[in-house]
């Protein structure tokens, strides 16, 4: 299979990730609950995960909350910062993991910056929206549909200068672009463990600057008489038994990234993205490509996007079609009615994948459309 759906999850993990998961299942009991060897071993696995994340994202281990996925982290962050009626500024490229929690909270959502690949427009609209008053902001680092890398450093600076707390959704950037809690000054940065960080599904990280409000309440293995959740991070936001095998695998994924460096991964993904974009354009497709783009792109082929993806799947090429859980991004780009076919490269990006994609599109999509 030619796997080009890394925006959904990284599929081929480094072998040590699989080994770590299995080993943790065989050797670890419940972390933070006992003092015997297997319980302490489990606690060590979780701490190792926090330490690796701290190195990758410039924060202390206790600022790393282990979550089930990026959506879980975003829900904690959004419910910590906002209340019904809060005015929250977001970009035009947010995922439903941001917009649905805000909608459910009855927050007033202000969308700022809808032009793809246009940093000047994004920043200008962003500043205008913040200046009209905001209780907070949430913004994605990279659009999951179009791969648009937003100018997050500048957007964060705009928020900091105005004293506006903000949350960064690093779902598509963690592992291939620099992400620093310290440098951005975000209240929270949420990310999945199973995409660019190469861990198993069912893992995620929430980096917290100060604290947060628990979404779940329950046992933490500490401070047990207190019927409120503990005041300290990370336990305050981690109720119940943790996914030790998952986080043991995630630690190994992050160690791979620390050894290899995110710059190298980005360069590799981006090189294939450029080749794919050029090739798809030559085949006469409508390709959404531009400056400031990560390893993801969308295209339209003059046929139903699901049919196009199915035609590629028949040839062993895995891509994702539809709205990608981001109707706001499609509305911004004018593709809400049709959806798009998305290809997203991963850590193993190479020319053989791009060539297979272009051949597959030429054979299975162009001839039918």
């Amino acid at each position, binding site marked *: 299979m030619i796997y080009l759906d890394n925006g959904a999850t990284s599929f081929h993990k480094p072998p040590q990730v699989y080994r770590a998961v299995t080993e943790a299942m065989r050797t670890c009991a419940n972390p*933070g609950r*006992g003092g015997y060897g297997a319980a302490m071993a489990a606690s060590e696995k979780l701490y190792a995960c*926090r330490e690796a994340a701290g190195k990758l994202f410039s924060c202390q281990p*206790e600022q790393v909350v282990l979550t089930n996925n990026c959506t879980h982290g975003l829900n904690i962050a959004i419910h910590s910062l906002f209340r019904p009626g809060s005015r929250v500024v977001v970009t035009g490229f947010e995922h439903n993991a941001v917009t649905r929690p805000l909608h459910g909270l009855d927050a007033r959502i202000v969308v700022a910056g809808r032009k793809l690949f246009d940093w000047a427009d994004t920043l200008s609209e962003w500043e205008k929206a913040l200046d009209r008053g905001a209780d907070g902001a949430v913004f994605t680092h990279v659009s999951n549909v179009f791969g648009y890398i937003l100018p997050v450093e500048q957007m964060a600076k705009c928020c900091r200068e105005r004293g506006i707390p903000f949350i960064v959704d690093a779902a598509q950037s963690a592992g291939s672009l620099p992400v620093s809690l310290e440098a951005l000054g975000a209240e929270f940065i949420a990310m999945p463990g199973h995409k660019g960080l190469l861990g198993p599904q069912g893992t995620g990280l929430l980096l917290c600057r100060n604290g947060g409000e628990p979404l779940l309440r329950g046992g933490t293995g*500490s401070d047990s*008489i*207190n019927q409120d959740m*503990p005041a*300290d991070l*990370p336990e305050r936001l981690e109720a119940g038994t943790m996914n030790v095998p998952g986080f043991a695998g995630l630690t190994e994924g992050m160690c791979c990234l620390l050894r290899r460096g995110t710059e190298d991964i980005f360069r590799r993904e981006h090189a294939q993205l450029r080749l794919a974009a050029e090739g798809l354009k030559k085949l006469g497709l409508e390709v959404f490509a531009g400056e400031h783009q990560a390893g993801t792109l969308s295209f339209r082929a003059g046929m139903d996007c699901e049919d196009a993806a199915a035609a590629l799947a028949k040839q062993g090429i895995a891509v994702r079609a539809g709205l990608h859980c981001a109707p706001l991004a499609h509305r911004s780009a004018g593709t809400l009615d049709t959806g798009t076919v998305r290809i997203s490269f991963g850590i193993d990006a190479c020319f053989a994948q791009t060539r297979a994609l272009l051949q597959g599109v030429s054979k299975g999509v162009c001839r039918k459309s």
Partner: protein
Amino acid sequence: MKFYYITFRSVTHAQRGESILKQRGIRCTLQRTPRWMEEQGCGYSLRVWTQDIHLPVALLEEKGVPKRRVYLQKDDGQLEEAQL
């Protein structure tokens, strides 16, 4: 050499404390806190072997790792809260 217990509210703080002290060559082990020491219920502590407890405590404070209490193990094996 004297034995001390430094108690923590959070296992993660205790783990970070262990990492900091070991990096400085201070011998310590992570363990469950004896129930009588922890009025708030379960917790973790570091058993520390040192002549001068002020150094490990200062290191933890410098790195922003909050501790709960410090206990000294006396020669007869009894524990008493250390006055720092």
